[in-house]
């Protein structure tokens, strides 16, 4: 199923083959193409390039054209302060500075940066016909706050008519903007109204619901889909948001996904979210991002859920983190690996692997999810199985399936990060890719040679011959030399006539013979106490 179809199905609450993925790329598109936020948000060519790059890297099912909640406010006369790494901020509120609604500039498609946004939309529409293009509009309450400032909160109680009049005006602007975006080719209109998170459900019902409902109804009448984005602590308003009849609601990490799922599905509305933006996507690793995405997928389920970040992706989010999410969402096998690791995490005792692989045989370990149920794991195990007989008992192999605790602790102990992985004598040799037979044989042979070398190097023996005088030792000395000659074994032979040393060996009368074996037990590593004890027992 293609992206747009998948999103349509999810919003229609149909079970989908996989969860659709919509990364909210805003100024992050500028980061991907090497331009600052200000330059990016003012240029159609740069936004097209940024979003195209994001599509190439993150393989989304849907993507916003632009994420800038100041666009409409700018047209209506709010002053913006621009920054290099974030969307601009509104710094003046015309209605708080004495202007009336009738004084505000006319809102039309040719004003401000709207032409650039529409051009970007048209270009992307043509380039990516199968992708769901999201057109974002500033929600009426947030726009009202841009125009009036925080006085709006007091006016909810002190001047209700004035607030209604303002909301009516902002709804008109939102309707126009939605119309422009739909005409330019957007499939989904997202009404983004984060400031509603600051009010209670009663105020929401009175001042937001009638207006938002009207906008969603108009979008539906135009044959397009709608989404209601609210970030922040908006848990109290989820039910009233659903009551506005959008096709979807999207929330951030401040609200638990299962709470939203319950409320949204009960109202027949699809839902989306809520990858953590800063702690995970911006500051975390690709592994963190995978775990986070998995948690969302497992909570969201395959019915009516769209995986998305909580809000606009921070500009400098490492692309690798978003790529990890995009790979995971399409790969049920990766999901299972991540799921298994997550459940066993933190409960594993690490094994002491310092002396691993010191036995005579070469040990090949294959870390798998489970070769019976996972195809790549099965091929990896078979590759080893085929090769082992070539070495006639010198090579021993074992599978460690991480579905069992033993496998997980083995994996962590060997510091293996990917599944499947082949380790030879405890060292990671092949990761994820199944090695061709020749390469595998070569790697094992190399290890056998290494061990052999070590063995040869490590052996040294001596024979000590004791006697009160050289004369006493002479015959024994000759016998030993003859024996060494006949055996072909190089030996160091020492003759000792010092009585004190004889006594130290417990010898009372010569000739006497002592054999000495030196064996190199470890090199360039510190053996544990237990291991040293074992060596001592051998003596």
């Amino acid at each position, binding site marked *: 199923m293609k992206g747009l179809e998948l999103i349509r199905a999810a919003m229609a609450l149909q079970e989908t083959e996989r969860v659709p993925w919509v990364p909210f790329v805003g100024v992050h598109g500028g980061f991907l193409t090497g331009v600052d936020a200000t330059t990016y948000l003012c240029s159609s060519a740069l936004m097209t390039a940024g979003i195209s790059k994001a599509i190439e890297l993150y393989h989304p099912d849907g993507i916003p054209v632009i994420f800038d909640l100041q666009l409409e406010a700018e047209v209506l006369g709010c002053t913006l*302060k621009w*920054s290099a*790494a*974030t969307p601009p*901020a509104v*710094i003046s509120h015309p209605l708080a500075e004495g202007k009336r609604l009738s004084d505000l500039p006319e809102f039309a498609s040719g004003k401000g940066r709207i032409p650039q946004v529409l051009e970007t939309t048209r270009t992307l529409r043509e380039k990516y016909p199968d992708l769901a293009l999201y057109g974002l509009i500033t929600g009426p309450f947030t726009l009202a706050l841009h125009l009036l400032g*925080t006085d709006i*909160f*007091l006016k*909810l*109680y*002190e001047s209700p008519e004035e607030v209604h009049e303002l909301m009516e005006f902002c709804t008109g602007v939102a309707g126009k903007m939605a119309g422009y975006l739909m005409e330019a080719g957007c499939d989904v209109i997202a009404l983004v109204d984060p400031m509603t998170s*600051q*009010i*209670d459900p009663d*105020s929401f019902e009175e001042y937001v619901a009638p207006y938002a409902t009207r906008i969603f109804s108009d979008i539906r009448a135009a044959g397009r889909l709608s989404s209601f984005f609210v970030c*922040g*602590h908006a*848990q*109290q308003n989820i039910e009233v948001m659903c009551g506005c009849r959008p096709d979807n609601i999207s929330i951030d990490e401040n609200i638990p996904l299962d709470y939203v799922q319950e409320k949204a599905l009960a109202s027949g509305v699809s839902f989306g979210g809520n990858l953590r*933006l*800063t*702690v995970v996507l*911006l500051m975390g690793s690709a592994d963190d991002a995978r775990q986070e995405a998995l948690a969302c997928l497992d909570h969201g389920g395959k019915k009516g859920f769209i995986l998305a970040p909580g809000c606009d992706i*921070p*500009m400098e989010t490492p692309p690798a983190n978003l790529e990890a999410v995009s790979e995971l969402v399409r790969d049920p096998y990766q999901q299972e690996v991540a799921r298994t690791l997550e459940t066993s995490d933190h409960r594993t005792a690490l094994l002491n692997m310092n002396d691993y692989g010191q036995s005579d045989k070469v040990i090949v370990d294959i870390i798998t999810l489970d070769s019976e149920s996972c195809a790549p794991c099965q091929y990896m195990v078979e590759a080893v199985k085929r090769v082992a007989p070539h070495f006639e008992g010198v090579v021993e192999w074992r599978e460690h399936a991480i579905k069992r605790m033993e496998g997980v602790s083995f994996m962590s102990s060997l510091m293996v990060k990917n599944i499947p992985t082949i380790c030879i004598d405890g060292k990671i040799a092949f990761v994820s890719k199944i090695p061709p037979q020749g390469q595998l044989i070569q790697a094992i042979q190399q290890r056998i040679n290494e061990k052999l070398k070590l063995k040869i190097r490590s052996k040294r023996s001596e024979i000590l011959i004791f006697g009160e005088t050289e004369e006493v030792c002479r015959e024994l000395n000759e016998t030993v030399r003859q024996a060494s000659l006949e055996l072909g074994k190089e030996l160091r032979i020492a003759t000792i006539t010092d009585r004190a040393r004889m006594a130290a060996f417990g010898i009372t009368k010569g000739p006497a013979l002592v054999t000495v074996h030196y064996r190199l037990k470890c090199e360039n590593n510190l053996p544990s106490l237990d291991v040293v004890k074992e060596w001592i027992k051998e003596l």
Partner: protein
Amino acid sequence: MTELLQKLSECVEFGKISLASPFPPQMKGQEGADEITRHLLDQGASPQDILTNGLMPGMERIGVKFRENKVFVPQVLMSAKAMNTAMVHLKPYFLTGEARQKGTFIIGTVEGDLHDIGKNLVSMMVEGNGWKVVDLGVDVKPEKFIEVLKEHPGAFVGLSALLTTTMPSMERTTKAIKEALPEVKVAVGGAPVTREFCDRIGADAYSRDPQGLVEYLNGRLED
């Protein structure tokens, strides 16, 4: 008088500003913070008593309700407005030193951050709890914080940031303050800020809601 103080605290808690104000509906037609404060002063109540036993308990109750998601920004702003109406009558006494505030709290959003709703709420809550608040506004440079801190020895300072992108600025500001004035206690807050971040940048206090900061400040007072 105790009854009047109790009434005043309810006006603050529910945001009842004056007789004329329509909010909240259940207190319509009743006197508000404005009238009741004047009655109290007329009857000889001390400004200190009005602040400590009338206004502060009301602000504290709304602060706790806000923390527990029982009320939201608009209700807190109404409470703050009721309190400010009362403070208009009390300010002259504080200026003459006849009544005393607990201490001084300097607040602002860090350089690069222009979002002030959270900062304003904190500022109102702290003021409502009997502290003198010096609000430096938005986009405040580290040097400005230091300059004002020097003018108010013993003051605490609060830094606010809403954006993840201004968190590094919060770190720079904290470090600059600590370097210039090591004894000053720095509190940080705002949507993306966490306890972990607070510890990492060497700030002294973090709270996820304004009431938590009030409790921290009052706690330092008792030290």
